[in-house]
């Protein structure tokens, strides 16, 4: 009952000192809101792939090796690896290989859609990745080469209310599938997302015209990396080493076999290939390999946000404590009277604690309401699916409740201890004595808040500065008004005819085509060339492009030109970039030969006819790597069309015209396009997301710092009230008093700013190190931010204190 009485008093006190209490509770609720949201976000990040029931035992196998002089780590592995591991290692209880079919046109009756998440997988897929199955028999899935399993979303998209099981779908590569199962959508926090999972066996149908022996040889080929391999093992001790030892022999045999072939070295200059394991629970935050299925995040972001959330919670608690203590000085008589009435130190202590805990639970309630209100916007902004009220979050609720209790206890502890210990005679004679030492501690804590706010503001501006730099950076080509149309092969293999028709349209200035889209990661390939030291192998990026590719992108040449049209099946001329010239160490590369070496397939010599200037053919975060451009053999269709629209033409009109052309020449396939600028901007999506989050944090931390400075200045004003009174009586003006007050508060703020600037510089540099090219926020801008924050702090102190200081006149000025 005593507790209820104290809660009642706490609530009455809240109403009595409502302006202070509202600020106090709102400040704390903001801290709690941030903590809840960040907790959900962090939980989502660290729980990636943990929804698979056996996630602790699932590992992805990745490849590590050296080709030529180039070391690489890639998520893709050879086709035979999965079966080999299952059959040769007792520790491996299950394995699956999957391959992703990109940009597939899927059709069902008259419905046709381009699908990005079409996967082929072995029968064990659903045993390892146990996504809930809504329809179908898990034990028989993917056994037939016609089987496909679709997700709930895809079932609705293609079949609506119809029964999906048994329905036949077609791919543009000629494969046909029957829907054998419907699974739940892959949860957001999965490192890859499938919409279709087709039987891996179906790929055999694509080896048209090959004998069974040739097919078997291709399937047992170890030097081509294009499958993702996952295994289940309960014991990884020594497994990696065993795999390395055993497979080293297999790989060496294969390398030797192809090296011994008469047509030359087709082992691709492979010096070594090895395989390692990574836990799938680690992929999202720790893996950054080549050929990742989807882009992953970074641990640094989780650590950063968790630290910030913790700090925000701590500083809001400190503000809460500061305001409570400052406010307690207004309750001096109440405390004195309570003591006189017989309330013991213990009772008073309990009352202050209960009051603080009551406030913090009110703040928790507000925080939960605020989180619920903010989450939809937050989810939209960051493309997440965070929810408070789902089953998995129950433990979070318990955690947040305990945390709130702890915050209440800690916040209430200081005022409770310091006010309960005064003797009534001291209270009546001198009031509450707020010590100088306590002011230094509080000032240091306020400075801590300024450190965080300044750090986040500088980080936000630093990120913004670099993002703007990257967006405006000269890419080496003109990306404006360039339309990219994927699935260009739908228009057939006679590209010259397509190009002619497109170019005849008014408003189109150039048309070309390529295999890999500009701005996306381009694969590496082994090339052989002669150097002073003899024959050498090197890994270079390459792209198959139509001869007007560089002209369409407006990339300039530094020597030579594009290859000429030829009647041969394929041009034997290639163009390299300036970076390639440097990598090959060829001062005069024109006319020199280099060989394209595709392990086990090709070893063709090409003649260099042109050297282009360097350009960002991959995401802007990447360094400009050496690039080789070559033509596709005649009769082979390009994947992507690139169309430059005239600046004067209306884009909408051009889209309509090109769309009509597309539909007329592709049997009504859906026309989908992207502007090159949008593709390039998408590469910075993660950076923009992090920037938005840091920006949000910066705003909130500024608000919290405002509360902090306000609380601290209230504390200082209360503590120095008597001093200020006498100073005013002996002739100090308001300005002089404010100046003195600001010096008291400002020294801590300035210290906070001075500490924050080098920290910001260091963390910003850590972030910038993830970019091959970056622009650092100039130091004077950081100093200017510090000055602005200092100025804002001055305004806060001014606005908050002037009223209080003015009231120190009059009847309160002189004691009786």
């Amino acid at each position, binding site marked *: 009952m005593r507790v209820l009485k104290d809660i009642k008093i706490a609530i009455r006190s809240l109403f009595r000192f409502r302006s202070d209490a509202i600020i106090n509770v709102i400040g704390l609720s903001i801290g709690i809101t941030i903590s809840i949201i960040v907790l959900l976000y962090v939980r989502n990040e660290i729980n990636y792939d943990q929804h698979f029931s056996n996630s602790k035992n699932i590992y992805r196998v990745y490849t590590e090796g050296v080709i030529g002089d180039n070391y690489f780590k890639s998520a893709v592995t050879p086709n035979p690896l999965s079966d080999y591991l299952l059959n040769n290692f007792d520790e491996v209880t299950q394995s699956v290989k999957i391959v992703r079919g990109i940009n597939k046109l899927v059709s069902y009756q008259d419905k046709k859609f381009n699908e990005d998440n079409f996967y082929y997988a072995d029968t064990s897929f659903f045993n390892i990745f146990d996504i809930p199955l809504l329809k179908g028999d898990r034990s028989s899935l993917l056994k037939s080469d016609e089987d496909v399993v679709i997700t709930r979303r895809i079932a609705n998209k293609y079949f609506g209310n119809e029964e999906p099981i048994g329905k036949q779908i077609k791919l543009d590569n000629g494969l046909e599938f029957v829907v054998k199962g419907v699974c739940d959508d892959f949860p957001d926090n999965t490192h890859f997302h499938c919409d279709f999972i087709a039987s891996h066996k179906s790929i055999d149908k694509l080896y048209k015209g090959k004998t069974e022996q040739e097919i078997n040889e291709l399937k047992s080929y170890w030097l081509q990396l294009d499958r993702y391999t996952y295994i289940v093992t309960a014991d990884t001790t020594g497994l990696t080493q065993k795999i390395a030892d055993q497979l080293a022999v297999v790989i060496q045999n294969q390398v030797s076999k192809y090296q011994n072939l008469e047509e030359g070295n087709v082992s691709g200059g492979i010096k070594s290939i090895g395989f390692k394991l990574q836990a799938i629970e680690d992929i999202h935050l720790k893996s950054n390999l080549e050929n990742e299925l989807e882009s992953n995040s970074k641990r640094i972001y989780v650590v950063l946000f968790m630290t910030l959330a913790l700090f925000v919670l701590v500083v809001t608690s400190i503000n809460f404590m500061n305001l409570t203590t400052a406010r307690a000085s207004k309750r001096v008589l109440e405390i004195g009277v309570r003591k006189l009435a017989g309330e013991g130190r213990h009772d008073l202590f309990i009352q202050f604690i209960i009051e603080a805990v009551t406030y913090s639970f009110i703040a928790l309630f507000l925080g939960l309401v605020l989180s619920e209100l903010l989450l939809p916007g937050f989810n939209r902004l960051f493309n997440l699916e965070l929810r408070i009220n789902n089953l998995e979050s129950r433990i979070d609720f318990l955690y947040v409740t305990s945390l709130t209790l702890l915050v209440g206890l800690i916040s209430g502890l200081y005022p409770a201890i310091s006010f309960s210990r005064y003797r009534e005679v001291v209270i009546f004679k001198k009031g509450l004595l707020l010590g*100088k030492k306590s002011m230094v501690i509080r000032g240091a804590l306020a400075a801590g808040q300024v450190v965080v706010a300044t750090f986040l503001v500088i980080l936000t501006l630093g990120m913004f500065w670099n993002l703007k730099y990257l967006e405006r950076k000269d890419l080496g080509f003109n990306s404006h008004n360039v339309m990219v149309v994927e699935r260009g092969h739908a228009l057939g293999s006679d590209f010259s005819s397509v190009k002619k028709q497109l170019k005849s349209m008014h408003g189109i200035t150039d048309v070309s085509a390529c295999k890999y889209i500009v701005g996306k990661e381009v694969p590496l390939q082994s090339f052989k060339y002669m150097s002073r030291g003899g024959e050498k192998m090197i890994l270079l990026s390459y792209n198959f492009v139509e001869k007007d590719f560089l002209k369409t992108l407006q990339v300039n040449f530094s020597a030579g030109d594009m290859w000429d049209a030829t009647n041969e099946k394929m041009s034997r001329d290639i163009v390299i970039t300036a970076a390639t010239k440097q990598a090959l160490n060829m001062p005069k590369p024109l006319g020199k030969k280099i060989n394209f070496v595709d392990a086990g397939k090709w070893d063709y010599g090409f003649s260099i006819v042109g050297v282009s200037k360097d350009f960002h053919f991959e995401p802007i975060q990447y360094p400009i790597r050496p690039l080789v451009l070559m033509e596709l053999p005649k009769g082979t269709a390009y994947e992507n069309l690139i169309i430059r629209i005239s600046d004067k033409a209306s884009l909408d009109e051009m889209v309509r015209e090109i769309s009509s052309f597309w539909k007329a020449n592709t049997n009504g396939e859906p026309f989908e396009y992207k502007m090159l600028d949008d593709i390039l901007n998408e590469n910075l999506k993660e950076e923009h997301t992090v920037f938005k989050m840091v920006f949000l944090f910066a705003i909130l931390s500024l608000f919290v710092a405002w509360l902090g400075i306000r609380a601290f200045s209230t504390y200082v004003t209360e503590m120095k009230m*008597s*001093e200020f*009174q*006498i*100073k*005013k*009586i*002996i*002739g*100090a*003006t*308001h300005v*002089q008093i404010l100046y003195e007050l600001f010096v008291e508060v400002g020294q801590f703020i300035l210290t906070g700013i001075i500490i924050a600037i080098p920290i910001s510089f260091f963390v910003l540099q850590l972030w910038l190190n993830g970019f091959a090219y970056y622009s650092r926020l100039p130091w004077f801008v950081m100093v200017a931010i510090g000055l602005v924050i200092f100025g804002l702090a001055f305004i806060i102190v001014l606005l908050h204190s002037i009223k209080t200081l*003015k009231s120190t*006149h*009059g*009847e309160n*000025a*002189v*004691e*009786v």
Partner: protein
Amino acid sequence: MIQAVDISKEYRTGNVMHQALSNINLNVERGDYVTFYGPSGSGKSSLVNILGLLDYPSSGELIFDGQSVVNMNERQRLMYRRGRIGYLFSSSRLVEELTVYENIELPLVYQKIKKTDRKQRVLKIISELNLTHRKNYFPKDLTGVEKQKVAIARAIIIEPLVIIADEPTGKLNSAEGVEILDILNRINENGTTIMVFTHSESVAAKGQKIVQVFDGHLVREKMLK
């Protein structure tokens, strides 16, 4: 020098009106030593605040050195007070973070007096009040009477026309009280007007003129010297 005409002061607390001063009429000449004597609640504090230009009367006229000060705004009053009025309270109300020297110097700092001039004036007063050996001490290291001497030094450093002292011996023992009143007497002999507010009859008896305050009224004036 100070002329109060029909000064009244009312305070409102919620719906309750409290009349602190009623129709006060008073004339204090330059060089006077006037003591205001009355019990607690008689209106002395209200009178200190109004005569000391720290508060506004609800009605009436207050003329200070021939100039009406009733309608001055806060800043004008502050500027007017500077150099004209010195204050002394029962608790010395020194700034704890400042030394004796710095406390005495403080009013001159606010008046933006040059440092060399300040030093000269402070050292002179410190010497006159026998505080030289304490000039670098902080208030916490002083005795009660020393603190009050510092407060007097701080009040007279500006060479005021009048010193308003509110219970200047209230927290001292009788011997210390006498020492402080002697100092005030010496200051008065040098031409500074002294106004002492007290509830002690013996303190009141030190003035040239006693004004008795009761229930917000000046009930009696008596010339002693």
